[in-house]
Protein backbone atom coordinates (compact mmCIF):
# COMPACT_ATOMS: atom_id res chain seq x y z
CA UNK A 1 0.00 0.00 0.00
CA UNK A 2 1.00 3.62 -0.50
CA UNK A 3 0.49 6.03 2.41
CA UNK A 4 0.87 9.77 1.78
CA UNK A 5 1.50 12.00 4.80
CA UNK A 6 0.02 15.47 4.21
CA UNK A 7 -1.25 18.43 6.25
CA UNK A 8 -2.42 21.65 4.63
CA UNK A 9 -0.55 23.83 7.13
CA UNK A 10 3.24 23.64 7.17
CA UNK A 11 5.21 22.71 10.24
CA UNK A 12 2.57 20.51 11.86
CA UNK A 13 4.87 17.47 11.96
CA UNK A 14 4.47 15.62 8.65
CA UNK A 15 8.11 14.67 8.42
CA UNK A 16 8.32 13.86 12.15
CA UNK A 17 5.37 11.46 11.88
CA UNK A 18 6.45 9.96 8.56
CA UNK A 19 10.00 9.29 9.78
CA UNK A 20 8.80 7.75 13.06
CA UNK A 21 6.35 5.54 11.19
CA UNK A 22 9.10 4.40 8.81
CA UNK A 23 11.49 3.54 11.64
CA UNK A 24 8.72 1.78 13.59
CA UNK A 25 7.71 -0.59 10.77
CA UNK A 26 10.86 -0.64 8.63
CA UNK A 27 11.96 -3.81 10.42
CA UNK A 28 8.68 -5.59 9.80
CA UNK A 29 7.71 -4.73 6.24
CA UNK A 30 9.60 -4.08 3.06
CA UNK A 31 9.31 -0.33 2.88
CA UNK A 32 10.14 2.49 0.55
CA UNK A 33 10.25 6.07 1.82
CA UNK A 34 9.73 8.94 -0.62
CA UNK A 35 10.34 12.59 0.30
CA UNK A 36 8.04 14.36 -2.15
CA UNK A 37 8.30 17.79 -0.50
CA UNK A 38 10.65 18.72 -3.31
CA UNK A 39 10.72 22.43 -2.49
CA UNK A 40 12.04 21.77 1.02
CA UNK A 41 12.99 18.09 1.42
CA UNK A 42 13.82 17.42 5.09
CA UNK A 43 13.27 13.71 5.71
CA UNK A 44 16.94 12.92 5.08
CA UNK A 45 17.83 15.17 8.02
CA UNK A 46 15.94 12.78 10.33
CA UNK A 47 16.47 9.45 8.58
CA UNK A 48 20.17 9.86 7.67
CA UNK A 49 19.98 7.71 4.54
CA UNK A 50 23.10 6.51 2.81
CA UNK A 51 22.80 8.02 -0.67
CA UNK A 52 23.93 5.60 -3.36
CA UNK A 53 22.94 7.41 -6.55
CA UNK A 54 21.66 10.69 -7.86
CA UNK A 55 20.08 11.59 -11.13
CA UNK A 56 18.93 14.76 -12.78
CA UNK A 57 15.37 15.72 -13.59
CA UNK A 58 14.77 17.51 -16.84
CA UNK A 59 11.75 19.08 -18.46
CA UNK A 60 11.31 19.55 -22.17
CA UNK A 61 11.07 23.08 -23.50
CA UNK A 62 10.57 24.20 -27.10
CA UNK A 63 13.57 25.12 -29.22
CA UNK A 64 12.57 27.16 -32.21
CA UNK A 65 14.32 26.58 -35.51
CA UNK A 66 14.68 30.21 -36.58
CA UNK A 67 15.44 29.15 -40.17
CA UNK A 68 12.03 27.52 -40.52
CA UNK A 69 10.10 29.97 -38.33
CA UNK A 70 7.96 32.48 -40.26
CA UNK A 71 7.35 34.50 -37.07
CA UNK A 72 3.60 34.25 -37.63
CA UNK A 73 2.97 34.29 -33.87
CA UNK A 74 0.57 31.34 -33.86
CA UNK A 75 2.55 29.51 -31.12
CA UNK A 76 2.50 32.49 -28.77
CA UNK A 77 -1.25 32.95 -29.31
CA UNK A 78 -1.91 29.26 -28.61
CA UNK A 79 0.32 29.04 -25.51
CA UNK A 80 -1.97 29.21 -22.47
CA UNK A 81 0.94 29.91 -20.12
CA UNK A 82 2.34 32.99 -21.90
CA UNK A 83 5.68 31.24 -22.22
CA UNK A 84 6.38 32.42 -25.78
CA UNK A 85 6.71 35.87 -27.32
CA UNK A 86 7.20 36.22 -31.06
CA UNK A 87 9.15 39.27 -32.22
CA UNK A 88 9.58 40.25 -35.89
CA UNK A 89 12.79 38.27 -36.25
CA UNK A 90 13.07 36.03 -33.20
CA UNK A 91 11.05 34.01 -30.70
CA UNK A 92 11.56 34.44 -26.96
CA UNK A 93 10.91 31.62 -24.52
CA UNK A 94 10.16 32.28 -20.85
CA UNK A 95 11.23 28.82 -19.81
CA UNK A 96 9.99 29.10 -16.21
CA UNK A 97 6.43 29.46 -17.49
CA UNK A 98 6.55 26.54 -19.93
CA UNK A 99 4.46 23.48 -18.97
CA UNK A 100 5.97 21.25 -21.70
CA UNK A 101 2.48 20.69 -23.16
CA UNK A 102 3.63 20.83 -26.81
CA UNK A 103 0.67 22.92 -27.93
CA UNK A 104 3.13 25.23 -29.74
CA UNK A 105 4.38 22.28 -31.76
CA UNK A 106 0.83 21.24 -32.62
CA UNK A 107 -0.13 24.66 -33.99
CA UNK A 108 3.12 25.46 -35.81
CA UNK A 109 2.56 25.10 -39.55
CA UNK A 110 6.24 25.45 -40.42
CA UNK A 111 7.40 22.53 -38.28
CA UNK A 112 9.78 24.94 -36.58
CA UNK A 113 9.27 23.71 -33.01
CA UNK A 114 11.82 21.23 -31.72
CA UNK A 115 12.59 20.27 -28.14
CA UNK A 116 15.48 20.42 -25.74
CA UNK A 117 15.98 19.41 -22.12
CA UNK A 118 16.24 21.81 -19.22
CA UNK A 119 17.54 20.78 -15.79
CA UNK A 120 15.05 21.55 -12.96
CA UNK A 121 15.93 19.24 -10.10
CA UNK A 122 17.47 16.04 -8.79
CA UNK A 123 16.41 12.66 -7.46
CA UNK A 124 18.57 11.11 -4.75
CA UNK A 125 18.32 7.41 -3.96
CA UNK A 126 19.71 5.39 -1.13
CA UNK A 127 18.68 3.40 1.91
CA UNK A 128 18.16 3.68 5.63
CA UNK A 129 19.59 0.87 7.73
CA UNK A 130 17.25 -0.53 10.40
CA UNK A 131 18.15 -3.47 12.64
CA UNK A 132 16.81 -6.13 10.25
CA UNK A 133 16.22 -4.63 6.88
CA UNK A 134 16.88 -1.63 4.71
CA UNK A 135 14.30 1.03 4.00
CA UNK A 136 14.66 2.16 0.42
CA UNK A 137 14.95 5.96 0.31
CA UNK A 138 14.04 8.35 -2.50
CA UNK A 139 14.08 12.13 -2.42
CA UNK A 140 13.16 14.81 -4.96
CA UNK A 141 14.85 18.20 -4.85
CA UNK A 142 13.69 21.19 -6.89
CA UNK A 143 16.50 23.51 -7.95
CA UNK A 144 16.53 26.91 -6.24
CA UNK A 145 14.88 29.50 -8.50
CA UNK A 146 12.59 27.02 -10.23
CA UNK A 147 8.85 27.63 -10.04
CA UNK A 148 7.19 24.30 -10.83
CA UNK A 149 7.53 21.38 -8.45
CA UNK A 150 5.33 18.94 -10.37
CA UNK A 151 7.95 17.67 -12.88
CA UNK A 152 10.17 16.54 -9.99
CA UNK A 153 7.21 14.89 -8.25
CA UNK A 154 6.31 13.14 -11.50
CA UNK A 155 9.87 11.85 -11.78
CA UNK A 156 9.56 10.44 -8.24
CA UNK A 157 6.25 8.79 -9.09
CA UNK A 158 7.76 7.09 -12.10
CA UNK A 159 10.15 5.38 -9.71
CA UNK A 160 7.44 4.35 -7.23
CA UNK A 161 6.15 1.01 -8.44
CA UNK A 162 3.75 -0.73 -6.08
CA UNK A 163 5.90 -3.79 -5.47
CA UNK A 164 6.49 -2.76 -1.87
CA UNK A 165 4.80 -0.66 0.79
CA UNK A 166 5.53 3.02 0.37
CA UNK A 167 5.42 5.99 2.71
CA UNK A 168 5.38 9.43 1.08
CA UNK A 169 6.16 12.74 2.81
CA UNK A 170 4.15 15.42 0.99
CA UNK A 171 4.61 19.21 0.74
CA UNK A 172 2.27 21.54 2.68
CA UNK A 173 -0.66 23.29 1.03
CA UNK A 174 -3.53 22.12 -1.15
CA UNK A 175 -2.25 23.09 -4.59
CA UNK A 176 -1.07 21.15 -7.60
CA UNK A 177 2.03 19.65 -5.95
CA UNK A 178 -0.07 18.19 -3.15
CA UNK A 179 -2.74 16.82 -5.49
CA UNK A 180 -0.06 15.33 -7.72
CA UNK A 181 1.41 13.51 -4.70
CA UNK A 182 -1.93 12.47 -3.18
CA UNK A 183 -2.96 10.80 -6.43
CA UNK A 184 -0.52 8.02 -5.56
CA UNK A 185 -2.19 7.25 -2.26
CA UNK A 186 -4.16 4.28 -1.00
CA UNK A 187 -4.40 6.26 2.22
CA UNK A 188 -3.73 9.88 3.21
CA UNK A 189 -2.51 10.47 6.75
CA UNK A 190 -3.27 14.09 7.66
CA UNK A 191 -1.10 15.57 10.42
CA UNK A 192 -2.58 18.57 12.21
CA UNK A 193 -2.14 20.64 15.35
CA UNK A 194 -5.11 21.71 17.50
CA UNK A 195 -4.77 25.45 16.79
CA UNK A 196 -7.02 27.72 14.72
CA UNK A 197 -4.43 27.64 11.95
CA UNK A 198 -4.13 23.87 12.03
CA UNK A 199 -7.90 23.42 11.96
CA UNK A 200 -8.46 25.93 9.16
CA UNK A 201 -5.88 24.24 6.96
CA UNK A 202 -6.96 20.71 7.85
CA UNK A 203 -10.40 21.60 6.49
CA UNK A 204 -8.82 22.50 3.13
CA UNK A 205 -6.66 19.37 3.05
CA UNK A 206 -9.71 17.23 3.89
CA UNK A 207 -11.50 18.82 0.95
CA UNK A 208 -8.64 17.78 -1.36
CA UNK A 209 -8.82 14.22 -0.05
CA UNK A 210 -12.57 14.15 -0.59
CA UNK A 211 -12.31 15.49 -4.15
CA UNK A 212 -9.85 12.72 -4.99
CA UNK A 213 -12.08 10.12 -3.29
CA UNK A 214 -9.27 8.85 -1.03
CA UNK A 215 -9.27 7.09 2.32
CA UNK A 216 -7.83 9.23 5.10
CA UNK A 217 -7.26 9.58 8.84
CA UNK A 218 -5.78 12.19 11.17
CA UNK A 219 -2.86 12.45 13.57
CA UNK A 220 -3.19 15.28 16.11
CA UNK A 221 0.33 16.44 16.89
CA UNK A 222 1.11 18.65 19.93
CA UNK A 223 -2.31 17.61 21.25
CA UNK A 224 -1.54 19.11 24.66
CA UNK A 225 -0.81 22.50 23.13
CA UNK A 226 -4.15 23.88 21.96
CA UNK A 227 -7.80 22.94 21.98
CA UNK A 228 -7.66 19.19 21.36
CA UNK A 229 -11.32 18.61 22.24
CA UNK A 230 -12.36 21.21 19.67
CA UNK A 231 -10.03 19.60 17.12
CA UNK A 232 -11.59 16.18 17.71
CA UNK A 233 -15.08 17.61 17.18
CA UNK A 234 -14.05 19.27 13.93
CA UNK A 235 -12.34 16.12 12.67
CA UNK A 236 -15.52 14.12 13.36
CA UNK A 237 -17.54 16.75 11.48
CA UNK A 238 -15.16 16.33 8.52
CA UNK A 239 -16.07 12.62 8.56
CA UNK A 240 -12.55 11.55 9.57
CA UNK A 241 -11.16 9.50 12.46
CA UNK A 242 -8.33 10.46 14.79
CA UNK A 243 -5.82 7.61 14.54
CA UNK A 244 -3.16 8.92 16.90
CA UNK A 245 -2.56 11.81 19.29
CA UNK A 246 0.93 12.95 20.27
CA UNK A 247 1.55 15.34 23.18
CA UNK A 248 3.81 18.38 22.92
CA UNK A 249 6.99 17.76 24.86
CA UNK A 250 9.87 20.21 24.77
CA UNK A 251 12.64 17.59 24.78
CA UNK A 252 11.06 15.88 21.75
CA UNK A 253 11.13 19.20 19.89
CA UNK A 254 14.77 19.65 20.92
CA UNK A 255 15.66 16.18 19.63
CA UNK A 256 14.03 17.08 16.30
CA UNK A 257 16.11 20.26 16.13
CA UNK A 258 19.25 18.10 16.25
CA UNK A 259 18.06 15.74 13.51
CA UNK A 260 16.76 12.98 15.78
CA UNK A 261 13.54 11.11 15.11
CA UNK A 262 10.62 10.95 17.51
CA UNK A 263 11.57 7.35 18.32
CA UNK A 264 15.10 8.35 19.27
CA UNK A 265 13.57 10.65 21.88
CA UNK A 266 10.67 8.35 22.82
CA UNK A 267 11.57 4.71 22.06
CA UNK A 268 8.53 3.66 24.08
CA UNK A 269 6.25 5.18 21.40
CA UNK A 270 7.35 2.62 18.82
CA UNK A 271 4.33 0.41 19.49
CA UNK A 272 1.94 3.30 18.98
CA UNK A 273 3.41 3.88 15.51
CA UNK A 274 3.36 0.17 14.69
CA UNK A 275 -0.28 0.19 15.76
CA UNK A 276 -0.92 3.19 13.52
CA UNK A 277 0.56 1.36 10.53
CA UNK A 278 -1.58 -1.76 11.03
CA UNK A 279 -4.65 0.40 11.63
CA UNK A 280 -4.02 2.07 8.26
CA UNK A 281 -3.41 -1.31 6.60
CA UNK A 282 -6.77 -2.60 7.92
CA UNK A 283 -8.56 0.51 6.69
CA UNK A 284 -7.01 0.18 3.23
CA UNK A 285 -7.92 -3.53 3.05
CA UNK A 286 -11.48 -2.77 4.13
CA UNK A 287 -11.82 0.01 1.56
CA UNK A 288 -10.48 -2.23 -1.20
CA UNK A 289 -12.91 -5.01 -0.25
CA UNK A 290 -15.82 -2.55 -0.22
CA UNK A 291 -14.71 -1.24 -3.60
CA UNK A 292 -14.66 -4.77 -5.05
CA UNK A 293 -18.13 -5.52 -3.68
CA UNK A 294 -19.38 -2.27 -5.12
CA UNK A 295 -18.13 -3.28 -8.56
Amino acid at each position, binding site marked *: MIVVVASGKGGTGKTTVAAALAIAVGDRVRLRFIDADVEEPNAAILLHPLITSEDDVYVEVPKIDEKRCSHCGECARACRFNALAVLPDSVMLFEQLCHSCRTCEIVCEEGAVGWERRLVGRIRRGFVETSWRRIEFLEGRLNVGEARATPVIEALKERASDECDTLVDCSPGT*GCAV*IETMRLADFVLLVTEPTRFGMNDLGMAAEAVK*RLGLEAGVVINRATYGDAAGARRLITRLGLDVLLELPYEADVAKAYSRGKTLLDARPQWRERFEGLWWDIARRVARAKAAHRRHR
Partner: protein
Amino acid sequence: MKEIVVVSGKGGTGKTLVCASFAALAGNAILVDADVEAPNLRLVVGAGRVLEEHTHSDSEVARIDTSLCKGCGRCAEVCRFEAVALDGVAVVDELACEGCAACFYTCPEKAVVMEPRINGRWWVAECRYGLIFHGRLEVGEGLSGKLVAVLKERARKQEGNYQLRIVDGPPGIGCPVLAALTGADFVVVVAEPTLSGLHDAERVVGVAQHFGLKVGVCVNKADLNPDMTAKLRDWVVQKGLVWLGELPFDEAAYSAMANGTSPVESEGRLAAALRTLHRKVIEHI
Protein backbone atom coordinates in the same frame (compact mmCIF):
# COMPACT_ATOMS: atom_id res chain seq x y z
CA MET B 1 5.01 52.85 0.62
CA LYS B 2 7.53 50.17 1.46
CA GLU B 3 6.82 46.47 1.16
CA ILE B 4 8.07 43.77 3.53
CA VAL B 5 7.70 40.14 2.52
CA VAL B 6 7.92 37.45 5.20
CA VAL B 7 8.96 33.96 4.10
CA SER B 8 10.57 30.93 5.73
CA GLY B 9 11.08 27.99 3.39
CA LYS B 10 9.93 25.57 6.05
CA GLY B 11 6.30 25.78 7.15
CA GLY B 12 5.17 26.56 10.67
CA THR B 13 8.15 28.66 11.72
CA GLY B 14 6.08 31.73 12.66
CA LYS B 15 5.60 33.86 9.52
CA THR B 16 2.02 34.75 10.42
CA LEU B 17 3.03 35.59 13.99
CA VAL B 18 5.61 38.08 12.70
CA CYS B 19 3.22 39.60 10.13
CA ALA B 20 0.39 40.06 12.64
CA SER B 21 2.81 41.68 15.09
CA PHE B 22 4.23 44.06 12.49
CA ALA B 23 0.68 44.99 11.53
CA ALA B 24 -0.20 45.78 15.14
CA LEU B 25 2.94 47.91 15.53
CA ALA B 26 2.40 49.76 12.25
CA GLY B 27 -1.15 50.53 13.34
CA ASN B 28 -2.38 51.30 9.84
CA ALA B 29 -1.01 48.86 7.32
CA ILE B 30 -1.88 46.97 4.17
CA LEU B 31 -1.71 43.25 4.76
CA VAL B 32 -1.46 40.63 2.03
CA ASP B 33 -1.83 36.94 2.83
CA ALA B 34 0.14 35.35 0.01
CA ASP B 35 -0.40 31.81 1.27
CA VAL B 36 -3.51 31.06 -0.77
CA GLU B 37 -3.25 27.30 -0.21
CA ALA B 38 -3.45 27.58 3.58
CA PRO B 39 -4.43 31.18 4.38
CA ASN B 40 -4.36 32.05 8.08
CA LEU B 41 -3.47 35.72 8.53
CA ARG B 42 -7.11 36.86 8.58
CA LEU B 43 -7.67 34.70 11.67
CA VAL B 44 -5.40 36.84 13.85
CA VAL B 45 -5.84 40.41 12.64
CA GLY B 46 -9.52 40.85 13.43
CA ALA B 47 -10.67 40.77 9.83
CA GLY B 48 -14.06 42.47 9.59
CA ARG B 49 -16.23 44.05 6.92
CA VAL B 50 -15.56 42.71 3.43
CA LEU B 51 -15.09 45.57 0.97
CA GLU B 52 -14.57 43.56 -2.20
CA GLU B 53 -15.04 39.96 -3.28
CA HIS B 54 -13.69 38.58 -6.54
CA THR B 55 -13.46 35.29 -8.33
CA HIS B 56 -10.11 34.57 -9.90
CA SER B 57 -9.86 32.87 -13.26
CA ASP B 58 -6.56 32.70 -15.11
CA SER B 59 -6.75 29.39 -16.87
CA GLU B 60 -9.05 27.18 -18.86
CA VAL B 61 -10.30 23.64 -18.73
CA ALA B 62 -11.11 21.36 -21.66
CA ARG B 63 -14.69 20.17 -22.03
CA ILE B 64 -15.86 17.62 -24.56
CA ASP B 65 -18.94 18.21 -26.72
CA THR B 66 -20.13 14.59 -26.62
CA SER B 67 -22.46 15.13 -29.57
CA LEU B 68 -19.40 15.77 -31.77
CA CYS B 69 -16.82 13.41 -30.19
CA LYS B 70 -16.27 10.23 -32.20
CA GLY B 71 -13.99 8.68 -29.59
CA CYS B 72 -10.89 8.60 -31.83
CA GLY B 73 -8.59 9.23 -28.86
CA ARG B 74 -6.27 11.75 -30.50
CA CYS B 75 -6.86 14.11 -27.56
CA ALA B 76 -5.71 11.48 -25.05
CA GLU B 77 -2.59 10.86 -27.17
CA VAL B 78 -1.47 14.50 -27.18
CA CYS B 79 -2.35 15.22 -23.54
CA ARG B 80 0.86 15.44 -21.48
CA PHE B 81 -1.03 15.48 -18.20
CA GLU B 82 -2.95 12.20 -18.51
CA ALA B 83 -6.12 14.21 -18.12
CA VAL B 84 -8.15 12.57 -20.90
CA ALA B 85 -9.53 9.04 -20.77
CA LEU B 86 -11.72 7.25 -23.31
CA ASP B 87 -15.04 5.77 -22.33
CA GLY B 88 -16.73 5.59 -25.73
CA VAL B 89 -16.16 9.33 -25.90
CA ALA B 90 -13.38 11.40 -24.37
CA VAL B 91 -13.69 12.17 -20.65
CA VAL B 92 -11.64 14.96 -19.02
CA ASP B 93 -10.29 14.69 -15.47
CA GLU B 94 -10.70 18.33 -14.48
CA LEU B 95 -8.23 18.18 -11.59
CA ALA B 96 -5.51 16.83 -13.87
CA CYS B 97 -6.27 19.15 -16.83
CA GLU B 98 -3.86 22.10 -16.95
CA GLY B 99 -5.82 23.86 -19.69
CA CYS B 100 -2.98 23.78 -22.22
CA ALA B 101 -5.41 23.32 -25.15
CA ALA B 102 -3.28 20.70 -26.92
CA CYS B 103 -6.45 18.59 -27.31
CA PHE B 104 -8.40 21.62 -28.54
CA TYR B 105 -5.93 22.18 -31.39
CA THR B 106 -5.69 18.47 -32.21
CA CYS B 107 -9.31 17.29 -32.27
CA PRO B 108 -10.36 16.66 -35.89
CA GLU B 109 -14.06 16.93 -34.95
CA LYS B 110 -13.73 20.26 -33.12
CA ALA B 111 -15.35 18.55 -30.16
CA VAL B 112 -13.14 20.18 -27.53
CA VAL B 113 -14.25 23.46 -26.02
CA MET B 114 -11.89 25.46 -23.81
CA GLU B 115 -13.82 27.08 -20.97
CA PRO B 116 -12.59 29.44 -18.29
CA ARG B 117 -12.18 27.82 -14.91
CA ILE B 118 -12.43 29.45 -11.52
CA ASN B 119 -9.06 29.00 -9.86
CA GLY B 120 -9.79 30.82 -6.65
CA ARG B 121 -11.42 33.70 -4.84
CA TRP B 122 -10.03 36.77 -3.19
CA TRP B 123 -11.22 39.48 -0.87
CA VAL B 124 -10.37 42.90 0.42
CA ALA B 125 -11.49 43.39 3.99
CA GLU B 126 -11.12 45.82 6.83
CA CYS B 127 -9.13 44.57 9.77
CA ARG B 128 -8.01 45.84 13.14
CA TYR B 129 -4.76 47.20 11.67
CA GLY B 130 -5.86 48.53 8.28
CA LEU B 131 -6.80 46.49 5.24
CA ILE B 132 -6.22 42.82 4.47
CA PHE B 133 -6.03 41.34 0.98
CA HIS B 134 -6.46 37.59 1.11
CA GLY B 135 -7.30 34.83 -1.29
CA ARG B 136 -8.05 31.18 -1.42
CA LEU B 137 -7.06 28.85 -4.20
CA GLU B 138 -9.63 26.25 -5.18
CA VAL B 139 -8.37 22.90 -3.94
CA GLY B 140 -6.03 21.32 -6.46
CA GLU B 141 -5.60 24.35 -8.69
CA GLY B 142 -2.16 24.73 -10.14
CA LEU B 143 -1.15 28.31 -10.58
CA SER B 144 -1.23 29.73 -7.08
CA GLY B 145 1.50 32.21 -8.03
CA LYS B 146 -0.90 33.98 -10.38
CA LEU B 147 -3.46 34.53 -7.62
CA VAL B 148 -0.67 35.84 -5.38
CA ALA B 149 0.40 38.22 -8.16
CA VAL B 150 -3.18 39.50 -8.52
CA LEU B 151 -3.46 40.10 -4.76
CA LYS B 152 -0.16 41.94 -4.64
CA GLU B 153 -0.96 44.10 -7.65
CA ARG B 154 -4.32 45.14 -6.25
CA ALA B 155 -2.75 45.83 -2.84
CA ARG B 156 -0.07 47.97 -4.47
CA LYS B 157 -2.74 50.14 -6.10
CA GLN B 158 -4.56 50.75 -2.84
CA GLU B 159 -4.79 54.43 -2.06
CA GLY B 160 -4.88 55.93 1.39
CA ASN B 161 -2.55 56.78 4.19
CA TYR B 162 -0.96 53.46 5.14
CA GLN B 163 2.40 53.03 6.87
CA LEU B 164 3.58 49.78 5.40
CA ARG B 165 2.67 46.84 3.16
CA ILE B 166 3.23 43.47 4.85
CA VAL B 167 3.11 40.26 2.83
CA ASP B 168 2.71 36.93 4.64
CA GLY B 169 4.39 34.48 2.27
CA PRO B 170 3.75 30.80 1.63
CA PRO B 171 6.14 28.02 2.63
CA GLY B 172 8.47 26.42 0.08
CA ILE B 173 10.51 27.96 -2.73
CA GLY B 174 8.19 27.42 -5.72
CA CYS B 175 5.92 29.59 -7.85
CA PRO B 176 3.79 31.29 -5.14
CA VAL B 177 6.98 32.18 -3.23
CA LEU B 178 8.49 33.73 -6.36
CA ALA B 179 5.28 35.73 -6.86
CA ALA B 180 5.22 36.82 -3.21
CA LEU B 181 8.84 38.03 -3.35
CA THR B 182 8.47 40.06 -6.55
CA GLY B 183 8.90 43.75 -5.83
CA ALA B 184 9.80 43.39 -2.15
CA ASP B 185 11.75 46.23 -0.53
CA PHE B 186 12.92 43.92 2.23
CA VAL B 187 12.59 40.19 2.80
CA VAL B 188 12.27 38.85 6.34
CA VAL B 189 13.14 35.18 6.65
CA VAL B 190 11.72 33.55 9.78
CA ALA B 191 13.94 30.58 10.53
CA GLU B 192 13.71 28.05 13.33
CA PRO B 193 16.79 26.64 15.08
CA THR B 194 16.48 23.11 13.77
CA LEU B 195 18.50 21.31 11.11
CA SER B 196 15.43 21.42 8.84
CA GLY B 197 14.88 25.09 9.57
CA LEU B 198 18.47 25.91 8.65
CA HIS B 199 18.36 23.82 5.48
CA ASP B 200 15.09 25.40 4.33
CA ALA B 201 16.17 28.96 5.22
CA GLU B 202 19.29 28.50 3.09
CA ARG B 203 17.17 27.52 0.10
CA VAL B 204 14.68 30.38 0.40
CA VAL B 205 17.50 32.89 0.94
CA GLY B 206 18.98 31.51 -2.29
CA VAL B 207 15.74 32.36 -4.09
CA ALA B 208 15.59 35.90 -2.67
CA GLN B 209 19.24 36.53 -3.60
CA HIS B 210 18.56 35.16 -7.08
CA PHE B 211 16.24 38.18 -7.45
CA GLY B 212 18.78 40.54 -5.89
CA LEU B 213 16.54 41.34 -2.91
CA LYS B 214 17.66 42.66 0.46
CA VAL B 215 17.29 39.90 3.06
CA GLY B 216 17.19 39.83 6.85
CA VAL B 217 16.89 36.71 8.98
CA CYS B 218 15.40 36.22 12.44
CA VAL B 219 15.20 33.01 14.44
CA ASN B 220 11.91 32.08 16.10
CA LYS B 221 11.74 29.71 19.09
CA ALA B 222 15.44 30.54 19.52
CA ASP B 223 15.74 28.91 22.96
CA LEU B 224 14.65 25.53 21.56
CA ASN B 225 18.24 24.97 20.49
CA PRO B 226 20.69 27.80 21.37
CA ASP B 227 23.58 26.07 19.56
CA MET B 228 21.62 25.93 16.34
CA THR B 229 20.53 29.55 16.81
CA ALA B 230 24.20 30.55 17.10
CA LYS B 231 24.99 28.54 13.98
CA LEU B 232 22.21 30.32 12.08
CA ARG B 233 23.49 33.71 13.25
CA ASP B 234 27.03 32.89 12.08
CA TRP B 235 25.69 31.77 8.73
CA VAL B 236 23.64 34.99 8.35
CA VAL B 237 26.65 37.17 9.09
CA GLN B 238 28.94 35.15 6.85
CA LYS B 239 26.42 35.39 3.99
CA GLY B 240 26.30 39.16 4.39
CA LEU B 241 22.60 39.14 5.30
CA VAL B 242 21.01 41.33 7.95
CA TRP B 243 20.82 39.63 11.34
CA LEU B 244 17.43 40.55 12.82
CA GLY B 245 17.77 38.74 16.13
CA GLU B 246 15.98 36.10 18.12
CA LEU B 247 12.42 35.47 19.22
CA PRO B 248 11.97 33.34 22.34
CA PHE B 249 9.50 30.49 22.59
CA ASP B 250 6.65 31.77 24.73
CA GLU B 251 3.71 29.43 25.10
CA ALA B 252 1.46 32.07 26.68
CA ALA B 253 1.88 34.30 23.65
CA TYR B 254 0.92 31.47 21.33
CA SER B 255 -2.28 30.80 23.19
CA ALA B 256 -3.00 34.55 23.05
CA MET B 257 -2.66 34.35 19.28
CA ALA B 258 -4.91 31.28 19.16
CA ASN B 259 -7.56 33.41 20.87
CA GLY B 260 -7.19 36.11 18.27
CA THR B 261 -4.99 38.66 20.04
CA SER B 262 -1.67 39.61 18.57
CA PRO B 263 1.23 38.42 20.78
CA VAL B 264 2.81 41.85 20.55
CA GLU B 265 -0.10 43.26 22.52
CA SER B 266 0.46 40.88 25.39
CA GLU B 267 3.15 41.41 27.98
CA GLY B 268 6.24 39.25 28.11
CA ARG B 269 9.51 38.29 26.49
CA LEU B 270 8.11 37.52 23.07
CA ALA B 271 6.27 40.85 22.81
CA ALA B 272 9.46 42.75 23.65
CA ALA B 273 11.48 40.75 21.14
CA LEU B 274 8.88 41.35 18.43
CA ARG B 275 9.05 45.12 19.04
CA THR B 276 12.84 45.00 18.68
CA LEU B 277 12.53 42.95 15.49
CA HIS B 278 10.06 45.45 14.04
CA ARG B 279 12.36 48.37 14.87
CA LYS B 280 15.33 46.67 13.19
CA VAL B 281 13.34 45.95 10.04
CA ILE B 282 12.12 49.56 9.85
CA GLU B 283 15.73 50.74 10.16
CA HIS B 284 16.65 48.70 7.10
CA ILE B 285 13.96 49.87 4.70
